[in-house]
């Protein structure tokens, strides 16, 4: 079967033994000004870990996730994903944006949106096949969305939209999932579902980094906490969490 990937590099094998994510001395500009949004950030996340990315608003959580997803240019420093530079292998990284970045009035169904998670595997000209259908159906079942599959995406509630985006990330079958505040404005059911899904992902050896404001279940749902503080100057607290080392006890 032919395959014309969207970017020239594709399906590069990961470097054996490399961390899932390694960020070294990373600096990134703000998109709309000439100041630095991140300055000299370094961190490591190992395969199979769930890492929480916490910090006040404007600390650069979204910027960090976007830089890892290859959406922002790097000023200095280095990002390695499974030992390879950003963009070396697009199918390996899934990014779940904040809901506002999508035009929800667009005339497509929930199922179709989830299917766009498969596009990275299809590339130019190829249409989704049976394997893709199956991956999408699986993701819909996991997120409890099967009954809503034919809904237009604008007719979904906030929680359902969030689940749809998560289903797309699952359908993509990525190894590193970057979730940008998926807990914002969602219902309790979706929250519980997310925790289950993240646990399943860990058991499959997938790596999850989630920006969040919810500090109540850190030690429960995550193996590692990364703290971004104060926009530019960045201090990162890293480490396996226990209630004693929880950097922000409630």
């Amino acid at each position, binding site marked *: 079967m032919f395959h014309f990937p969207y970017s020239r590099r594709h399906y590069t094998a990961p470097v054996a033994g490399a961390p899932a994510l390694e960020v070294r001395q990373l600096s990134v500009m703000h998109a709309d000004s000439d100041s630095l949004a991140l300055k000299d950030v370094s961190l490591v996340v190992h395969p199979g870990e769930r890492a929480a990315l916490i910090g006040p608003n404007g600390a650069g959580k979204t910027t960090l996730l976007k830089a890892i997803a290859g959406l922002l240019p790097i000023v200095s420093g280095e990002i390695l994903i499974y030992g390879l530079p950003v963009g070396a292998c697009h199918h390996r990284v899934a*990014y779940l*944006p904040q809901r506002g970045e*999508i035009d929800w009035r*667009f*005339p497509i169904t929930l199922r179709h949106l989830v299917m766009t998670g498969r596009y990275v595997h299809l590339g130019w000209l190829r249409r989704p096949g049976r394997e893709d259908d199956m991956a999408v159906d699986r993701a819909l079942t996991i997120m409890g969305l099967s009954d809503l599959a034919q809904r237009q995406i604008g007719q979904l509630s906030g929680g359902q939209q969030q689940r749809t985006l998560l289903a*797309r990330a699952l359908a993509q079958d990525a190894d590193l999932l970057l979730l940008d505040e998926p807990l914002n404005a969602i219902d309790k059911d979706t929250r519980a579902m997310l925790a289950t899904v993240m646990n399943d992902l860990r058991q499959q050896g997938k790596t999850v980094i989630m920006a969040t404001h919810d500090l109540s279940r850190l030690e429960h749902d995550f193996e590692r906490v990364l703290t971004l503080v104060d926009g530019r100057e960045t201090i990162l607290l890293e480490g396996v969490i226990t209630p004693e080392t929880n950097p922000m006890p409630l």
Partner: protein
Amino acid sequence: MNILNDLLDPFIRFEFMRNSLAAVILVGLVCAPIGVYVVLRRMAFIGDALAHTILPGIVFASIRGLNLFVGAVLAAVATALGIGWLSRRESVREDTAIGIVFTGMFALGILLMSTTRTFRDFTHILFGNILGTTRDDLILTAIIAVIVIGSLVLFHKEFELTSFDPTHAEVIGLKADRQRYWLLILLALTVVTAIQAVGVVLTSAMLVTPAAAASLVTNRLPRMMMVATVIAIGSGVVGLYFSYRFSVASGASIVLTCTAAFGAAWLIRISVRWINRRRAA
């Protein structure tokens, strides 16, 4: 049978009517599907601008005795790329960039026109003259139709994804900007075909009105494109017939039929909502 004969009579009798009929069908086929993107991506202003910026291209070609069509295509593509380039990284906001390029090019067209001392030659450019469609025009329109529709079909999933979620597109390595430039070029080609039907001033109607009407009656993209195409072709044929029967301007007649179709779609939407609300109550 008599009514049918009556309806078909002008097309059987006159070659120019057959040419015009082929032209409106082609124009509808090209304009409607890409018009859906114009409406969904809120590019209506760009469509309008492209139509106006074509003027200097056409006038220049006409003065030099070159092919008008080619002049129009070159001017439109240059505009599309110019607007994209000016507004990259938001150094100038897109609507501002459009405003500058659009008025500047249109003024240039008028200026060139005034050097020829005869505005009358160009009225069909401004207001359209489908009845003057030649065989060569038809062939060029057909080629453009194949390019535009072919691109939209082959790269449907990429145009669709970059329209509603450019972020995801970028994450998987699909450049949303490149896709946008491409759409602008296709739009430029489309506008050139629409101009011969309805003229510079009314071209955005062919792009926007059928698509907007379709968006009122369905919320599935492929179906929206289908409905828009039916409305565009239907309006083209009906409008053409009216213009012949009552000897009125063809472009205006076609556009007003589109407008009426939009009105009908609006009524359908309102009635469906009303019925649904009744049922729910």
